[in-house]
């Protein structure tokens, strides 16, 4: 994956950037996000999708790209939540939506309808792998959040000791 040649079409980048933002904002509207953070939840989803897309374009494989995408969503969500002083869920719920394996899940249904059970099983495995790797990336970002909280606590303690 690293050191590979990647050629970008500026049109592709632009479409992915804008559409992931719009899609996240659209989902945020359906779950009633507070007005003041609606733009930032879009940014969060955009960051996650762009990381996922870039890693996929660099032929990073399904698992690593989803893990890194979910990790990015969690990371951006934590930072934004600290900054805007509101729950992390406001950013992570819409942010993870573009990463949800919608297309493979539909394909599972489609193949089951067509009676292609073996192909459906293969697709189901793909859905499972993607879901697990999203969970993994999200877990890593939770770890980051804990480390951050501990760091802040220690910083405050040190300031108190100085006084």
């Amino acid at each position, binding site marked *: 994956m690293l050191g590979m040649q990647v050629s970008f079409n500026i049109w592709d980048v632009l479409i992915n950037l804008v559409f992931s933002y719009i899609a996240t904002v*659209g989902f945020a509207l359906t779950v009633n996000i507070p007005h003041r953070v609606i733009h930032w939840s879009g940014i969060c989803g955009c960051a996650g999708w762009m990381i996922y897309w870039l890693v996929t374009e660099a032929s990073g494989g399904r698992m690593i790209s989803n893990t890194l995408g979910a990790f990015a969503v969690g990371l951006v969500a934590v930072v934004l939540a600290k900054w805007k002083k509101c729950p992390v869920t406001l950013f992570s719920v819409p942010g993870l939506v573009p990463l*949800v394996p*919608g297309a493979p899940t539909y394909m599972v249904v*489609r193949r089951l309808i067509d009676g292609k059970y073996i192909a459906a099983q293969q697709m189901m495995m793909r859905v499972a792998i993607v879901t697990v790797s999203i969970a993994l990336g999200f877990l890593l970002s939770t770890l980051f959040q804990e480390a951050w909280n501990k760091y802040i606590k220690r910083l405050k303690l040190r300031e108190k000791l100085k006084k």
Partner: protein
Amino acid sequence: MSVDAYMKRVVHTCLKAGRLMLAGGSEMYRVEDTMRRIAVNAGIKEVNVFAMPTGLFVSLDDGECSTVTELETVKKRAINLELVDQVNEFSREFADKRIDLEELEEKLREIEENIPTFPLWLQVIGAGILSATLMVLFLDVYDWIDFPVAGLIGASGYLMDSWLKGHTKIRFLAEMIAAMEMGLLTIIINGIFPACNVNNILTGALMTLVPGLALTNALRDLFMGDWVSGIVRMCEAAMTAIALGGGVGIVIRFLGA
């Protein structure tokens, strides 16, 4: 005011705050944390709270002779993250002593009576643009013929789902019927305009009803050690996905596409 009456008030405030957050779709650890903070900041010595997706328990102990324990079930649920944010904000204000217990009660009652939501038309538009843009992102082909159709069908499915949710108590039925409606509409549109691709349109349109909140919260609950709610929400997400797939499957199977 006697000690017992004061503790009763604190318990009721805690339960109301917890119920609003739970109904809004918060993760368990935040519900428990908020309830505990409200009670501790109200001056109660020993506080025990336990939250599940279907109910809340609070037990307060003043350190001497009286204990108050109450439980409340949560049946009504409406995903609304603004509610979570507001209750969180009130609890912060209460912790900073900017408002007292009476004002907190007043604010919670106010928000309970008129829950802030976006108007339905805006939500439907959100669902429409979500399905249209996600279709392009997922399929990685710039399929501009299906783009508006996917938006239209996603919006109609979301409208159907939210309308049915007000009329039935059976869980997952609304999702299933909305998915059936989306499949039916897609097949009709495909019949009129054969250039449309049924699979592409449905991939995008079904994303409007995807259990994004249930899945994210399930993961967070599991990582925070709230096993009961984590597994329950995992199950909810899986059941919703099955309902969506089943609804679309039935229609495509019988009408053929």
